[in-house]
């Protein structure tokens, strides 16, 4: 512990000299049909009531472009149950018109062959990539990129107690890593943005019943891979805007 404190105080003056033109904080904001969404809140879809009990996902490789180069190194952030935020470090003299990020874990950390990536159990429990975050497949190497779990009133009895009235959609796999780009809504850089994610847009056209209720495609050979791919392909619609925050 002493050595860590010493390192901190040694780094202090160096950090004080660091100059950053603009640091941006991004806060994901969950919505359903354009309205704020919280966990365990009832929402309507195609005449059926549903509620989310877990909404967790990784956001990584947040960057802007400077010429043909990415602005800052990869970062991996876990937004758990809708809570979390992440930062963008901007290079000097740049006023980007577009922000980029990936939904998921980059392949260098998600090596399904298991030979290259650091095993999830070796990370400290607080690390976003630790298996303790409950976002690791376990049965094979690799991370769950997004978890959407909840309850759905399939029989219309205004309750969620009948058998099968739950849903659990887990996506992952390197082939389902999706890069999302969002325009900066103004020609100025704001210090803080809301990243709007509308889950109704994510589920648009998705058959949320039967086999669509439980999707856990750990492999592209799994029968539910097509559904995981559908959801993954909707991500660029679901993450629909950046809005400056005061």
């Amino acid at each position, binding site marked *: 512990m002493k050595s860590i404190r010493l390192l901190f105080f040694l780094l202090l003056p160096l950090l004080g000299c660091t100059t950053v033109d603009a640091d941006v904080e991004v806060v994901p904001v969950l919505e359903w049909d354009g309205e704020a969404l919280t966990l365990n809140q009832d929402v309507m879809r195609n005449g059926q009531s549903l509620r989310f009990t877990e909404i967790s996902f990784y956001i990584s490789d947040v960057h802007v472009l400077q010429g043909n180069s990415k602005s800052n190194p990869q970062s991996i952030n876990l937004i758990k149950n809708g809570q979390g935020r992440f930062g963008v470090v901007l290079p000097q003299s740049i006023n980007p018109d577009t922000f980029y990020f990936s939904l998921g874990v980059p392949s260098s950390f998600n090596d399904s062959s298991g030979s290259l990536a650091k095993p*999830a*159990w070796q990370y400290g*429990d607080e690390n976003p990539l630790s298996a303790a975050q409950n976002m*690791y497949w376990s049965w094979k190497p690799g991370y769950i990129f997004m978890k959407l779990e909840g309850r759905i009133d399939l029989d219309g009895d205004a309750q969620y107690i009948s058998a099968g009235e739950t849903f659990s959609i887990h996506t992952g796999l390197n082939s389902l890593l999706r890069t999302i780009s969002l325009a900066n809504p103004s020609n100025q850089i704001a210090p803080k943005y809301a990243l709007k994610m509308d889950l109704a847009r994510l589920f648009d056209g998705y058959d949320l019943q039967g086999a669509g209720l439980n999707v856990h495609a750990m492999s592209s050979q799994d029968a539910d891979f097509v559904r995981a791919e559908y959801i993954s392909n909707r991500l660029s619609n679901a993450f629909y805007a950046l809005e400056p925050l005061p």
Partner: protein
Amino acid sequence: MPWNPYLKLLGLFWVLMSCNSASNPSFETDLDSAAWVELGKSLFFETAWSKNGDVSCAHCHRPEFGFSDTLPRAGGNAFGVPARNIPSLLGVSRKTLLNWDGGVRSLEEQALIPLHAEGDFGLPPAQSLQRLQGKDYLEKWGYSLNLRTAVTALARFQQTLTLPEPVMDKHYQIGLEWFQNQNCQQCHAGPSFSDGKFHRLKAVKTSADLGRYRITGIPQDSFAFLTPSLCTSWLSPPFLHDGQAQNLNEAMQAHGLELSQGEIQLLELFLQRLAGMAAEPPS
């Protein structure tokens, strides 16, 4: 307020502190080999891991059955993970890939499977760990348990579970000779009688369980499963990855072999010897 350098400084301080605590250095530096094994053994038989408080690792990996069980299948879930025959843990440290499909690379990773919201214990790891706080075997060290320490200890304990010592009597020698003549050692090779590779049995052509294919995506791996060690087979029937073979005769048929009653008895005596048992054949 902008996300300015001062906040970043605080963030860095938090990261440094959390890195320090997450690595749990006291636990990891204070335990010697024997203590790691002792801790792992306590965790292996601990039922507080599970949602209902009644399931431990030993629930399926029962010591009296070679750290396996006698059910055909267990461990599957509603999320596409197939139920399979529980493998023995004896000699598990010899394996480079674990599970019937080789989807797991280490004992530490293997320990994550039940410690998972959708796993056998039915709780997220953080909740499972919380339930263990205050246990005597943890209190004596004075440190809280984290996931990395837990799976490391579980792995250290399992590494001590060695294969049975074979009984090398005449039945062993006769069985081994027959075994070699039948070319069984093409797959059941080496000291553990497993080549550590994946093969598709003749009788297992199609099923819902895709085997190794689900891990590699290589079509040739369809319905291929890891060659089990024969040193422990006799301890925990039924046999094969899905427990479909209730007896040795059915297991041989799955291999595409029709054996005489005499050959079956010879093989039974051989497998008993591999498992360290020296029962004489019935007269």
